[in-house]
């Protein structure tokens, strides 16, 4: 079934741990995006990719990194998590011709203690 899968959905970890948030889509979309969202706030773009081996940073500065080795897979990694990284992370792919037609995953809620 065509979808975007994000794992884990919820993660609570201690400071200093390395974490990877997984994002996989089965729709063959080239353009993928990571957003960060705090409660009651706008979504902020932190990373995007236009295809395999293409990754760029978004407008919101983030200490995370991403990779795009396969079209369907766009993981986000934090080498050393801190409490300031506590947030909801949303993965999305561009589903239409227009720049605003995104298909989102269910999100990964990260809490760093």
């Amino acid at each position, binding site marked *: 079934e065509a979808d975007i899968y994000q794992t884990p959905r919820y993660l609570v970890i201690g400071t200093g741990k390395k974490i990877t948030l997984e994002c996989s889509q089965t729709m063959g979309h080239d353009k993928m995006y990571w957003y960060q969202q705090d409660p*009651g706030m*706008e979504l902020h773009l932190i990373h995007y990719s236009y295809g395999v081996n293409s990754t*760029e940073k978004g407008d919101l500065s983030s200490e995370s990194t991403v990779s795009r080795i396969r079209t369907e897979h766009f993981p986000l990694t934090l080498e050393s998590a801190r409490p300031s990284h506590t947030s909801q992370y*949303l993965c999305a792919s561009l589903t239409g011709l227009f720049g*605003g037609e995104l298909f989102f995953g269910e999100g990964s809620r990260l809490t760093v203690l």
Partner: protein
Amino acid sequence: AQRVTQPEKLLSVFKGAPVELKCNYSYSGSPELFWYVQYSRQRLQLLLRHISRESIKGFTADLNKGETSFHLKKPFAQEEDSAMYYCALSPYSGSARQLTFGSGTQLTVLP
């Protein structure tokens, strides 16, 4: 720089009443505008786009370039409309690189 403003963080209406969620934008070119919705425990999803001039779940939105607004309207609200609504703007580019979201409005439809 482009900007999207949703002036109401919270909005409550009674079932059957009309509802309007406000969205104002600033952008120097011709924007593409969208409304996204997130129901409780569900993912964020596209509700409608202005270029399609469509009505989805009874909701419509008209782009008013003079007032730089893209308000979302429904004549008779239903309890299942309770959700978080986000307005978003994009230059026509075929990429979401410049997609800007508002901060959202939590709509509650009371019985």
